[in-house]
């Protein structure tokens, strides 16, 4: 009894702070210890292991001057590899947007046998080492593999071709779309859909005009993340891609080739382009998340 009263007092006491003045939430911060210690450790660890090494990359790339950078980036082989990496990653993100949306919808809205198993399986690309995924995919899609043989009958070349790269990148990017969408679908309020139904919309109209616009920002955010993960992917791609210069050589692979030739500034220059892409993706996905909150009112 006393406990309940205490709790009520606590809630009533803190409620105005919670609603009116948001910054007052931080009021009790002096009670909790460890701010300086945890922040200091976080920043030191982050700087030493991530920020300083990454700044090294930029320094190395620019040390040869802009002309040298431009000369590296305009090499036909570099352009071809960047085009391939960004192109296949984009194609994979598109495929993932479609199937990710359907899967997230099925997982959140329907109950069917094996739903929890399917839900757990979504994270497989996170947990499965990329090299293992790589050799499994190439075994499946090689001309003598289970799927590859069937595709070969229809004159489709999957392994050692851009299609194979796209398949591998679809594999690694899939969980990002599903996991971005799931909480948003779960939080969608039913009343809007009910209102649409009451006002005479059929289910298809409700889905396309009410539900989908609310899910669009998160779908795009998930796509952005899937794209970001896929652009830099290495392990699962190198086995299935065939690695032919100008044809199936992805940018991360070209970086490793340049490193093996001790062309450090060349490797760093390609690396900086990919790093810039990573930063853009990070910013873009944050903006999309904001847009999503605005649209769904959360």
């Amino acid at each position, binding site marked *: 009894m006393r406990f309940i009263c205490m709790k009520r007092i606590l809630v009533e006491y803190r409620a105005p702070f919670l609603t009116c003045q948001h*910054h007052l939430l931080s009021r*009790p911060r002096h*009670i*909790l*210890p*460890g*701010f300086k210690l*945890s*922040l200091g450790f*976080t*920043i030191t*660890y982050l700087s030493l*292991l*991530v920020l300083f*090494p990454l700044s*090294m990359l930029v320094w190395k790339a620019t040390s040869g001057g802009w002309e040298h950078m431009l000369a590296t980036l305009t090499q036909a082989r570099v352009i071809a590899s960047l085009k391939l990496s960004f192109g296949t990653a984009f194609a994979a993100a598109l495929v993932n947007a479609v199937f990710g949306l*359907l899967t997230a919808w*099925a997982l959140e809205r*329907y*109950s069917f046998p*094996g739903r*929890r198993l399917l839900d*757990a*399986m*979504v*994270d*497989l*690309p*996170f947990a*499965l080492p*990329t*090299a*293992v*995924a790589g050799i*499994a995919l190439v*075994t*499946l899609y090689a001309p003598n*593999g289970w799927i590859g043989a069937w595709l070969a009958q229809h004159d489709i070349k999957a392994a050692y071709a851009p299609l194979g790269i796209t398949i591998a990148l679809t594999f690694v990017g899939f969980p990002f779309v599903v*996991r971005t969408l*799931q*909480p948003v679908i*779960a939080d969608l309020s*039913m009343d809007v859909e*009910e209102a649409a139904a009451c006002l005479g919309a059929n*289910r298809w109209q*409700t889905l396309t005009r009410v539900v989908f616009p609310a899910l669009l920002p*998160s779908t795009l955010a998930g796509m952005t*993340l899937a794209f*970001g*993960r896929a652009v*830099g*992917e290495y*392990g699962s791609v190198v086995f299935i891609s065939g690695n032919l210069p100008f044809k199936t050589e992805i940018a*991360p*692979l070209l970086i*490793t080739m340049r490193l093996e030739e001790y062309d*450090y500034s060349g490797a760093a220059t390609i690396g900086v382009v*990919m790093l810039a892409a*990573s930063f853009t993706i990070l910013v873009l996905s*944050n903006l999309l998340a904001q847009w999503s909150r605005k649209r769904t009112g959360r």
Partner: protein
Amino acid sequence: MAAIIDIHPPRTVRPRKATAESFFSRWLIISTAVGFMGLMFVLPLVVIFQEAFRKGWEGFIEAFDDRATMHAIWLTLKVAAITVPLNTLFGLAAAWCVSRFQFRGKRFLTSLIELPLWVSPVIAGMVYVLLFGAQGLFGPTLKEHGIKIIFALPGIVLSTIFVTFTFVARILAPQMEAQGQAEEEAAMTLGANGFQMFWRVTLPKIKWGLLYGIILCNARSMGEFGAVSVVSGHIRNKTNTVPLHIEVLYNEYQFVPAFAVASMLALLALVTLILKTLTTTRRGAA
């Protein structure tokens, strides 16, 4: 930022009739999802185990009766044993300061913590080559003192830390934020010191999330390929980790051993997923 690794406790929303799809479209959507995941996820897993047992149990066991394989496993265990505790410590510190305090630049810091997830693993390896490699910034100094970082254990550990940096923090921070800090405040007001509060209050609150974070970090550090491949130099019996060893075996057309070793990592991944499902239910209940 949507939580990608963190899934919400399963909920069964039963839409009312007016807001439900027809039986046919329901069936179509479910079978598309199941079909896509079966093709993309289940089939590769099946192939790994099928290839690993192509020559039966004996072939499978024989694959591990190899000095290079055992060395690779040993090296991978060592790398994980150094990486996981360090990143766990970092994850705890980062989650604590991000979820319990308001300060300027917090969002920027959160973004930076997430950055390694979006950086190509090849770049994660390359930056350390640029720092410590023969032509790197510290290369000459290191050579003078006879310290080897690239093409040796320290380089492998550093690049693995880079790629598995985010996981513990990313799982813990949203959970800790959602759980709130009332219990910790109560502990402090009642006279606990910082260590007692952490050990008796915070740790029990976050244990399932922490466990999953550690498991995922472990799975990723044991399976990292791109970053390690750049810094390791692929020296057999010296700097070959398990994923690199799989590549070597595969390129030598030793398919059964390659898939046998790969199946161990696949098993680790499956265990990770199972533990994730279990801890999610617990985390949801907590």
